[in-house]
Structure formats: C-alpha cells, structure tokens
C-alpha cells in the first residue's frame, strides 16, 4: 500500500512536470528550434533583455495585476461588509448570485460580454479605440472581485462582532472601530484575497485577449508568439517566471511552517 501510493503520486507528478522539464531544457538550446537540442547556451536568456516588446508586455502585466488586485481588494472588502449588513435575505442572495457569475461562467463568455460592452460604450462616444488600458483593467477588477469577496466574507461572518459593539459602546465611531477592531481580525483573509487576485490577473489570457486592444499583456504576447513558430525565447522567459514563483512558494512555505511551529502545531 505504501509503495503503491508513493509510486502513484510520483507518476502524477512526473506527468505534471514533463512539459515543464521540456521547457527548461529547450530554453538552454543553442539552436533556434524547440524540437532538436543542439547544445547548451544562454543566448535566449541574453536575448530577452533586449526584447522590448516582451519587456513592455511584462510591464503592462505587472501594472494591471497590481492595480486590479489593489482596487478589487478594497472594493471587495467594503462589499463584504456591506453585503453582510444588508437587511433582507433576498437582496443578500441576489447580490451573491451576481457575484458568482464571473466565477461560474466560462472565461470566453465573460471576455466576450465585456468586449461587447466596451465596444458599445466606445461607439456611443465615437472613440477611435474602444479597447485599451482601462478596459483590460476594468475586466481584471471584475473577475478578481468574486475571489476577494469569497475570501473575506466567510472570515468576516465568523468574526466575533461583540468586540466591535464593545468598541462602539466605549465611544468609538463605527469607522474607527472597523479599522481598529474588525480589520485586524480579517487581515489574513484580505491578504489571501489580494494574492489570489494578483495571481489570477497575472495569469489571465482569455479575458485579456478579448478586452485588451493594443495594451498587450504578457500572455497575449506569448499567444501571438506561439501562433508563429516558437523560438526558445518564450521558454526562457517562462523558465524565469517559473523560478521566481518557485522561490516565492518555498519562501512562503518556510514562513508558514515557522508560523505554525510558533503557534505550537508540531508538523
């Protein structure tokens, strides 16, 4: 049983990492193909530094990811507070059903419906370009919001509100009490929501594809590159991204287990 479980888990992990290994290997290819490995070189990595289109796209991706994560976290946290304060159950569940739509729906449908809206608005104001920075930002905020709300709301609901009420009784204003009492107790879930929003935005291709116009993010540039024959430079770029994420995750994990052992969980 023990061996079987190890072998099975190992096989699935090999399946998951086979394309990753291929990608890393061919990013060091001295030749220009992703089929034939000719020899080891770092040329593709050096080439990245001068690939302005890719660097520009990377900048766009980071700007959109940071802004959309920030805005959706603030708006989503406020929304969680407000939705829980709604008096009628009906209106609460109506708002929550609408919140679920972008998560349940296929990305392509969300992307297309947003594109139709932006084109419609663009035509209304006779804009030359109806798609660009603001439309892709709005789209990303829209698909990030449900994840922030679903991260914050359950925690907020579980928070002991008597502390908040005590603060009010002792003369705190509701706003001050929110920032001093409620916010610290839900800060972890807000942080989780923000991280989730950031990574979703970083990785999104389908919705950006329909809403970005000329403001191309990295996945869009990668898509355009894979339309033609791919050179190993895309692989080199992905290897770098992969390594960054790998280091971040290791760091996060060590911090997490340190925090766990401080709290006395011996794992």
């Amino acid at each position, binding site marked *: *049983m023990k061996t*079987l479980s*190890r072998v099975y*888990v190992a096989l699935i992990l090999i399946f*998951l*990492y086979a*394309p*990753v290994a*291929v990608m890393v290997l*061919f990013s060091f290819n001295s030749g220009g193909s992703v*089929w*034939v490995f000719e020899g080891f070189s770092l040329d593709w990595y050096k080439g990245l530094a001068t690939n302005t289109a890719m660097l520009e796209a990377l900048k766009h991706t980071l700007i959109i990811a940071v802004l959309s994560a920030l805005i959706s976290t603030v*708006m989503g946290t*406020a*929304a969680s507070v*407000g*939705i*829980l*304060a709604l*008096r009628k159950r009906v209106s609460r569940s109506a*708002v929550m059903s*609408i919140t*679920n*739509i972008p*998560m*349940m*729906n*296929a*990305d*392509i*449908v*969300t992307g*297309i*419906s*947003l*594109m*139709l*809206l932006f084109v*419609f608005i663009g035509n209304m104001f006779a804009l030359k370009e109806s798609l660009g920075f603001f439309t892709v930002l709005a*789209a990303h*905020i*829209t698909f990030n919001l449900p994840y922030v709300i*679903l991260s914050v709301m359950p925690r907020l609901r579980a928070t002991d*509100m008597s502390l908040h009420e005590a603060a009010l009784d002792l003369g705190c204003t*509701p706003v001050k009490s929110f920032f001093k009492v409620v916010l610290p107790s839900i800060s972890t879930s807000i942080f989780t929501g923000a991280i989730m929003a950031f990574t979703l935005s970083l990785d999104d*291709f*389908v919705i950006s594809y329909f809403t970005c116009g000329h403001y191309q993010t*990295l996945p869009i540039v*990668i*898509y355009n590159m*894979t339309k033609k024959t*791919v050179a190993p430079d*895309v*692989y080199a770029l*992905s290897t770098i*991204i992969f390594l960054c*994420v790998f280091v971040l*995750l290791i760091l996060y*994990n060590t911090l997490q287990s340190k925090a766990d052992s401080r709290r006395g969980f011996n*794992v």
Partner: protein
Amino acid sequence: MNKKSFGSRLVAAPYIVWSAIFIVVPLIIMVYFAFTNDAGSFTLSNFAQIGKFKKAFGLSILYAVIATIITLLLSYPMAYYMTKFKIGHQRMIMMLIMLPMWMNFLIRTYSWITILANTGLINKFLSFLGIGPLQLINTPGAVILGMVYDFIPYMILPIYTAMSKIDNSLLEAASDLGSDSWSRIRRVIMPLSLPGVISGITMVFVPSVSTFYISQKLGGNKTLLIGDAIEYLFNTGPQYYNVASTLSLILMVLILISTLIMNKFGDDEEVVI
C-alpha cells in the same frame, strides 16, 4: 453583525454599481446581440444558423466529458494517496501540484507539442526502439490530453481538501464496526468527499468545454471546438458579432445547466466553490 447601520450597507454600493455595469449589463448586451441582426432589428435567424455549429458543440461536449472523466479517475486515487503521507509531505505535494499552475497555461500547452510532434520526444524514443513514427499531435487524443493536463490541479485540490477534512475517528469507528479498507473507502470516504468531486468536475468541465487554445495548438485544424468557432467569429469582424453572441449564449446556458445538475448531485444546501 447586529448594528446594521445604513452606513455599513452603503459601503457595498460601489461594488453593487460595479457588478451591475460589468457583470449584468454585458450579459444583457450579449443577449441583445444574440436576438438581433447587424442592423439591430429583432430576429431569430442567428439561432437558425447554429445548425452549422452542431458538430463543434458535439465535439466540445464529448471531449470535455471524456477529459473530465479521465481527470477524475486520475485525481481521486491521487487525492486519496496524498492523505496517506505525513502532513509536512502533504503540504509539499500540494505545492508541487500548484506550482505548474503558476506558469502560463499557453506555455504548458505548447510544451506538449515538443513532446508529441512527429519529430518530438516520444517519436524519437519510439524510432530508437524501431517503432513509429506515430501520429500523436493533431489528434483528438492530444486535445483531450491537453485538457486533462491543464485542468487536473482543479480536480485534485478540492477532492484532497474534502478528504483531508474527514475525521479520522470516523474511519476508526468504521473499522471497529468491522469494515474492511474497501468498504471504508466506499461507505465513508466516498460520500464525504463527494462535495470535492462535484466542485472538481465543474472546475474541469467548464474550462474544457469552452477552450479554444488547446484545440488550436494540439488538435491542428481538424478539431474545431465551440470556443474556436466563437473566437474565430469575433475576430473576423463586427458583422459576425450576432452569431457569435448566439453561440456564446448557448454555451453559457449549457454551462449553467451542467453546473445546476452537478450541484443537484452534491450537497443541496451549499454550493461548493
């Protein structure tokens, strides 16, 4: 929250306005496009045209169903075996499963071409053994493989989460009452992990049925899926927006129905996300 003041309700206002503009209105516009022609007058002719896309719809559903079943069959034992590891190791395996998800899915899909192509790694290995070359790329099998590969973490993670929440004392009680390991799996673990399975199925089926990148890259031009048709029509020009909206609307309804069916199977009280 007992003090439901007007002020605390008001902070939801920006979000409610936002979701009305960017979630509800776009869908209304899509429905409007689906029921009008490019001059803007009401018509059902878009729906008459969908006969042309019957095959694309059929293939999309077929491939997505097959991919979902394969993913489930691979993921369920994976999640079960994961719970047998030490907690620290479980966390590491979780991390390893999530790590490829952080890499752009376009690249992950594209790398399979290097493996599957006629001059790719598998065929090179086969020719070394004196077999082949086999046609692996540009086949329905390659498209399904791509779907399974891209979306398998979405199946493993919810099932694993559901399984790791199962109280060990339940399993001990089952053993004490004479269950062998198979009936423990069938009568305790399976029912309790069902919510994870349900949410995994939805999370794999929805992106599979609506994909357009995987089929373009791994299926060549032989496998036109509904996502490909929608993407193609929208990129061809505004005169096709109406038909494309109709197709999107049908796809959305299809997804809605399958999600509702799945939730019926699961816990009726709460929708698992």
